[in-house]
């Protein structure tokens, strides 16, 4: 969070923490940059679920709030 912010980056909040990402990065790009398989996660953006088919086109914007979840063991 203390990284220098340049004109080419924006800040988003994902899973409760701030992330500085390239301006114009898509959701698919955001996941790929973190080695996440888009087929096993579900993403909510600003309270709305993003259909998996739109991961490639959706560009993240400053202040976006993301929840990126998957299934884990639970009873």
């Amino acid at each position, binding site marked *: 969070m203390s990284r220098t912010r340049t004109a080419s980056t924006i800040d988003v909040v994902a899973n409760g923490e701030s992330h500085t990402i390239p301006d114009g990065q898509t959701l698919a790009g955001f996941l790929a940059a973190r080695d996440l398989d888009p087929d096993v996660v579900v993403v909510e953006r600003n309270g709305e679920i993003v259909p998996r088919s739109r991961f490639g086109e959706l560009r993240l914007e400053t202040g976006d709030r993301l929840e990126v979840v*998957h299934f*884990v063991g639970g009873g």
Partner: protein
Amino acid sequence: MSGEAVTTERASEVGGMTIGGRTFGSRLILGSGRFDSPDTLVRCVETSGAEIVTVAVRRVSLDRADEGGLLRHLEGTGVMILPNTAGCYTAEQAVRVARLARAAGLSEFVKLEVIGDERTLYPDVVELVRATRTLVDEGFVVLPYTSDDVVVARRLEEAGAAAVMPLASPIGSGLGVVDPLSLRFIRDAVAIPVIVDAGVGTASDATVAMELGVDGILMNTAIAMAEDPVKMARAMRLAIEAGRLAFEAGRMPRREWARPTSPDEGRVGE
């Protein structure tokens, strides 16, 4: 013995259960938490014969490569994944998590939990009824984890729940069926399936529950935390079948005084 053969055998013995229009050969639903490894979980799925496995919805780790996800491991087993809303304390939270779970594209089924107390993990039944209504309206097949309150069970049925899942004793306690009467009240009061959820600690607990006439049991800790989980999974499978068969067979009446099993007459030397 292959998993498939087993399912066939069981189905023919004690029938299966139908929830939300889907029929399952096994009456055991397995929770996937607290296993020492995905491999143990998968072996327990196979040994128990479970055809439904619950999972929780949690944030992925964005900082380090994640372990790949539970689904990859369960894919080969053919089970239905049943997401839960564990950890939610309001109807709103639970509805939100249910929607996220459905967006994974696996099914409309959700195990609905709205917790009201952190120490006992008792449900908040007021919120639970509200959340059930909302999710049913949105097309979910809702399986609410609830208390053993017969009036709440009926309200959940009225709200459109596909089954009710009363606890036998607190989640993770292993105390077994504390109040069999209340479970029978529920069994008699609703037409939807009754799945005992939480409290089973060992095989006899499962047999006791099934003998009450409930349709199935959801268990997790009893298997995951047994010293030998795979062996306990097998025990549970048999225990559930035994309990169901005994329920169908109709037990002998209890009596306080003894009654001989050998004839009284014709004794030697009388």
